[in-house]
């Protein structure tokens, strides 16, 4: 997946939201993007997911992508199982095969006991796990994540980090993960990109050469996170 000079603005008055974004993501890579509010992260993900085609520049990708939000966005009128089956039913898969795949995916996120529950009966963490299963059910190799764990408590988030790393390695996914949380970015990403605000563009990049399984509270993660945070604050002060 490669973006070259992607520029996007919605009105002349407000200026550009994205300014000459260049990003190359290799197949199977985990890229984390950090930035303050208003840096155009969501706009960028919309472009990457083909939801927004009003940009200029070139964007090539070999596969279509799934997108996850901060809100699990599960459909409240469907059960957990039906929610996971939905992408496959839209793709026209047979009832038996989609049921089987959905059960497998829900097993993978440890929700096989809750398949007949409704979304409102689940905790926030469980809902996000269903959302992961639903995204996997689209069978896209690229997974775009827009602060998916932003609304969760720290304990649940830690567990989900471990789970996401496992799923990423096991399914050889390409993940672009957007977050406010620098430590989370370092915990998960192989590369961390720092984005500036108004207009949004990448200003720095770090490689995270730490082996999996990583822990968010390890000193190595903390050290790098601190460096990135300092840089992020510098960028924020610029706007003051």
């Amino acid at each position: 997946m490669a973006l070259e000079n992607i520029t996007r603005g919605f009105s002349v008055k407000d200026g550009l939201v994205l300014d000459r974004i260049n990003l190359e993501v290799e197949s199977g890579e985990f890229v984390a993007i950090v930035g303050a509010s208003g840096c155009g992260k969501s706009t960028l993900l919309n472009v990457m997911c083909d939801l927004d085609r009003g940009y200029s520049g070139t964007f090539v990708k070999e596969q279509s992508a799934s997108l996850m939000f901060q809100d699990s966005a599960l459909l409240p009128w469907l059960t957990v199982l039906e929610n996971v089956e939905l992408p496959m039913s839209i793709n026209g898969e047979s009832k038996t095969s989609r049921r089987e795949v959905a059960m497998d995916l829900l097993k993978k996120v440890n929700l096989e006991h809750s398949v007949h529950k409704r979304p409102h009966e689940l905790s926030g963490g469980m809902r996000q796990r269903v959302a992961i299963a639903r995204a996997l059910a689209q069978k896209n190799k690229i997974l775009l994540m827009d602060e998916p764990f932003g609304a969760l408590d720290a304990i649940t988030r830690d567990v989900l980090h471990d789970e996401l790393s496992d799923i990423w390695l096991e399914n050889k996914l390409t993940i672009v993960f957007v977050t406010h949380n620098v430590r989370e970015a370092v915990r998960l990403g192989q590369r961390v990109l720092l984005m500036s605000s108004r207009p949004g563009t990448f200003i720095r990049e770090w490689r995270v050469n730490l082996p999996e399984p990583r822990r968010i509270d390890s000193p190595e993660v903390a050290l790098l996170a601190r460096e990135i945070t300092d840089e992020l604050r510098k960028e924020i002060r610029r706007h003051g």
Partner: protein
Amino acid sequence: MDEFTSLNAGLDALEIQKKTARNWRSKFSNFTYAIIAFVTLLVIWQVAIKISGVKSYILPSPKQVFSAMQTQWKSGILPHAIFRSFSRGVEGYALALLVATPLGLLLGLNKVLRMVIGPVLLGLQQLPSVAWVPAAIIWFGLSPATIFAVVLLGAVPSIANGLISGIDQIPPLYLKVASVLRANKWQRIRHFILPAAWPGYLAGLEQGWAFAWRSLMAAELIAVSPSLGLGVGQLLDVGRQLGDMSLVIGTIFVIMAIGIFVEKIFFSPLRKRTLRNRGLTQN
């Protein structure tokens, strides 16, 4: 993965609220309150007649009403009238459903059409459909078509407007999910728009039934003819012509009872199930 399994199991168990068993006692007491209220009403009514000494052709006692209705029931007139009106109501309502659903969907999805037809639909909803009875009689004569036309004009605007407002209130996030999952136009309607609009649609369906039933009664009351047979509305007119106040009041009770019956047996469970499934109930 084993580690996650146990960890997740622990977290999930801690975070999920325990289900409380549905309280049969509260259900029972709801029913008891309704009975108590009804009996109290009868007692007040009886006592008021006793004290005021009002003539029974002005206001009969509950007992007189009951025995009048009993006579009608035994003669077979009342069951027949109930059946006729109820089946007419259901048929007219089904027809209204077939007209209003595509109409509401079209207007909910197409802004231009909405601007053109929306105001007309709103006007129709404001107009009591009984106002159509004279016109319908001129167009269709004293035939079932007249009655169906009036029922349709009563129910269609409510159902269509309910669906439209249901579509208007769909959270944009669900439509974004539809785009992310790459649903085509038809899948978008079937998997996202219709189920998401269901609560509003259901409200429209309920109101539509109430309007259909009212319109039916009004039409039956005005369009009296041997060719139309005897419905509950016509029974009301028979009571008036005979000066039989017990029959008139008894028939009013029957009309109300059928309305309550449909609400309690059909709409209320449907509404409760919808709210419960979507986590929209209080407890």
